[in-house]
C-alpha cells in the first residue's frame, strides 16, 4: 500500500471532479503539496517552521479512507464532556446531522456550500495545502452583527483508521459574540488535519476553547487563522492531552486598532507523545494586545515543542505583546524545545517573552508527603497547581470544570 505524500496525491487524482468547490484552488494546493511534501517525510528539504516536529510517522502510516468504521461513534460521543448547548458533530470528517444539535442560525455545511475562506496559505503551509486539496466537509458558521450566539460545540470524532481534512470558516459580525468549544476524540490510528479560519469583525468577541483528547495512536494537526479587527477579541485556550503526535498551529493577525488576542495553551504528555504548539501573532494595527502562556507537562519520554513569534509591523505603535512558555519535566527522559521570537519594526512597543523549564520542587514534594499525602498524589497536586494558572484563563466555570475533569482523567490514565 502506498503511504506518505504520494498516497494523498494519488487519492486527490482519483477524486478530481468529485470534490466540492473551487477546483482551481485545489489544483494549486495539490501543486504546492507535491513540491513541499509532508514535513519530515521522505523527499524532504528542511522547513524551518517544522524544525522540531517531523511528520515521518504520518508519512509511514497507511490510512484506509474506504475501510468501514471500526468503532462506534455514538459511544465515543457519549463519553465526551458535552455541554448543554448546540453542537456540530463530525464523524470521520463528515457532518452528522443526526448526532448534532443545530445552532439557531447561520450554519452551512462545507460539503454543500464549499467555503475555503480567504486567510489560509496553502503555498506556505504543507498541511494546509493537503487540507485544501482533500477537504470534503466542515462547518461554516456566521454570527450576525450584534448577536450573542452563546456556546456552540464543534466536535470531531474519529472511528476509522483513515485521514480527515475538515475545513471550517467562522465569521463573527460586528459586535457579535460566540463561545466555540472544540472537542476532538476518537479511536484508532487516524490523521485529523483541520484547517479553520475565524473572521472577527469590529468589537466582536470570540472565545475559542479546544480540548484535544485524541486516541493514543492518532495524529492531530490543526491550523487556525484568525483575523481580529478593531476592538475585537480572539480569546483562545487549547488543552492538548491525546494523540501520539499533535501540532497546533495558530496564525492570529491583529488588523484593527485595539484588537486583542489570547493564545493560551496547556499540553500534558506522557509515554512517547509529541506535541507542538506553534503560533504567529501579527500586530499590524496600533494599540493591540496579545497574551500567550503555553504550559507543558512532560512525563515519560514525551517531547513538547513551543514556537511562538510576535511580529510587530511598523505602524503598530503602542503594541503590547507578552509570551511565556513554561515546561515542567516529570521525567529525566522528557524533552522540551522552546523558540520564542520577537520581530519588531515599530519603536513604541511593549513586548516581552520568556521560557522556563523545571522539575517538581523537592521541598514542595516533601512538604506534601510529610502531611501524609502519597508520592503519586503529591505529584498530581503540584502538576495541577502548575496548570491552574493556565486553566484560570478560562473564565467560564462550567467549561473550566470540564477541562479540569479532562486533566483529572489524563492523570488517572497515567496511573493505570
Amino acid at each position, binding site marked *: 500500500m502506498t503511504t506518505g505524500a504520494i498516497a494523498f496525491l494519488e487519492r486527490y487524482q482519483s477524486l478530481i471532479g468529485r470534490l466540492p468547490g473551487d477546483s482551481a484552488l485545489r489544483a494549486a494546493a495539490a501543486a504546492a503539496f507535491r513540491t513541499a511534501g509532508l514535513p519530515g517525510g521522505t523527499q524532504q528539504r528542511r522547513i524551518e517552521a517544522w524544525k522540531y516536529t517531523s511528520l515521518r510517522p504520518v508519512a509511514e502510516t497507511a490510512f484506509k479512507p474506504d475501510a468501514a468504521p471500526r468503532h462506534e461513534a455514538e459511544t465515543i460521543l457519549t463519553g465526551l464532556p458535552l455541554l448543554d448547548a448546540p453542537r456540530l458533530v463530525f464523524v470521520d470528517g463528515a457532518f452528522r446531522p443526526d448526532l448534532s444539535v443545530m445552532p439557531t442560525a447561520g450554519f452551512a455545511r462545507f460539503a454543500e456550500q464549499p467555503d475555503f475562506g480567504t486567510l489560509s496559505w496553502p503555498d506556505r503551509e504543507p498541511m494546509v495545502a493537503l487540507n485544501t486539496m482533500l477537504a470534503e466537509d466542515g462547518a461554516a458558521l456566521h454570527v450576525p452583527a450584534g448577536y450573542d450566539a452563546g456556546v456552540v460545540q464543534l466536535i470531531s470524532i474519529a472511528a476509522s483508521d483513515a485521514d480527515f481534512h475538515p475545513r471550517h470558516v467562522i465569521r463573527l459580525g460586528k459586535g457579535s459574540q460566540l463561545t466555540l468549544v472544540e472537542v476532538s476524540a476518537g479511536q484508532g490510528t487516524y490523521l485529523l488535519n483541520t484547517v479553520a479560519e475565524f473572521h472577527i469583525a469590529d468589537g466582536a468577541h470570540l472565545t475559542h476553547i479546544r480540548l484535544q483528547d485524541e486516541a493514543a495512536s492518532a495524529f492531530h494537526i490543526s491550523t487556525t487563522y484568525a483575523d481580529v479587527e478593531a476592538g475585537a477579541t480572539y480569546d483562545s485556550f487549547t488543552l492538548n492531552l491525546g494523540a501520539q503526535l499533535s501540532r497546533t498551529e495558530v496564525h492570529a493577525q491583529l488588523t484593527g486598532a485595539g484588537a486583542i488576542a489570547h493564545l493560551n495553551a496547556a499540553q500534558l504528555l506522557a509515554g512517547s507523545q509529541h506535541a507542538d504548539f506553534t503560533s504567529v501573532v501579527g500586530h499590524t494595527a496600533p494599540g493591540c494586545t496579545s497574551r500567550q502562556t503555553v504550559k507543558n507537562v512532560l512525563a515519560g519520554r514525551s517531547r513538547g515543542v513551543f514556537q511562538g513569534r510576535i511580529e510587530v509591523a511598523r505602524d503598530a505603535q503602542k503594541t503590547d505583546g507578552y509570551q511565556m512558555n513554561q515546561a515542567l519535566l516529570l521525567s529525566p527522559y522528557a524533552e522540551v524545545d522552546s523558540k520564542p521570537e520577537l520581530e519588531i519594526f515599530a519603536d513604541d512597543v511593549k513586548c516581552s517573552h520568556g521560557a522556563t523549564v523545571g522539575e517538581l520542587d523537592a521541598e514542595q514534594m*516533601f512538604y*506534601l508527603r*510529610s*502531611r*501524609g499525602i502519597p*508520592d503519586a498524589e503529591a505529584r498530581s497536586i*503540584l502538576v495541577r*497547581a*502548575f496548570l*491552574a494558572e493556565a486553566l484560570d484563563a478560562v473564565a467560564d466555570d462550567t467549561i473550566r470544570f470540564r477541562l479540569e475533569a479532562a486533566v483529572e482523567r489524563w492523570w488517572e490514565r497515567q496511573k493505570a
Partner: protein
Amino acid sequence: MLDIRGLAASINDKPILKGIDLTVPEGEVHAIMGPNGSGKSTLGYVLSGREDYEVTAGTVTFNDVDLLGMAPEDRAAAGVFLAFQAPIELPGVNNANFLRTALNAIRRAHGESELDAVQFLKLARAETKRLAMPDDMLKRNVNVGFSGGEKKRNEVLQMAILRPKLAILDETDSGLDIDALKIVADGVNALRGPKFSALVITHHQRLLDHLVPNRVHVLAGGRIVRTGGPELAKELEKSGYAGLIAEAA
C-alpha cells in the same frame, strides 16, 4: 514512645548529626534548644523522612516501628508531624483542599472513611476559630502571601486537624506575637494526653512557660550535650550556651 539511638546524618557528605541519643516517652513533651546551626532542624527533617539527608548510623523507633525505613507519607500516617521552621509555599494549591487531601490520606491509611468537603469544612472552621485564625486562610493558596506569623499558625492548624501522635515543632514560636504564642501553646496543650508526645525546638524560654516540658535537651555540634528539667531552659536564658559547650568539649 520515640526512641533515637546513635543517630548520625549528613547532607552532601557533610556530617550534621553526630550520634544523637534521645527518648521521648508517650505523653511527654521535650524541648530541644541549642545554638544556630547545631542540627535541630536537621533532626526534625531526618525524623520526618526528608530524602536529601543521609542517615549514616543509628536507629529510630516510634511505637516499636522502625521509622527510618519508612517513606515520609507513611511516617505521617504513623502519627509523625513536623511543623516546619520555614513553611513551604504552594502556589496554585488551595489550603482547604490541601488539608482535606492530607487528612483523608491519613484516614485512608488507617482504614477510616474519607471526609467530604462539607464535613471537612465544618471541622476546619472549628479549628480555625479555636486558633483565632481568619476563615479566609482556608481559601487562600497554601502559605502564599502569608505573613511569617500566619505561616506558623497555619502549621499549628495542620497539626490540630491531622492530630499527630508525635509533633515536632521547629521554632513554631519564632515570629509570633504574644497572643499567638499563647494560642500555639494552647494548640499543643489541647493535644496533650497519654498517646501524644512532642519535640519542641525553640530558642526562647517564653514558649516553655506556656508549654511546660518534661525534659529539656541541648543540642550542640550535632550531639545532645546536656539534658535537664524545665529549669534548664531558664538557666540557659541567663547563661547562654558558651559555658555548656566548653564543658562538653
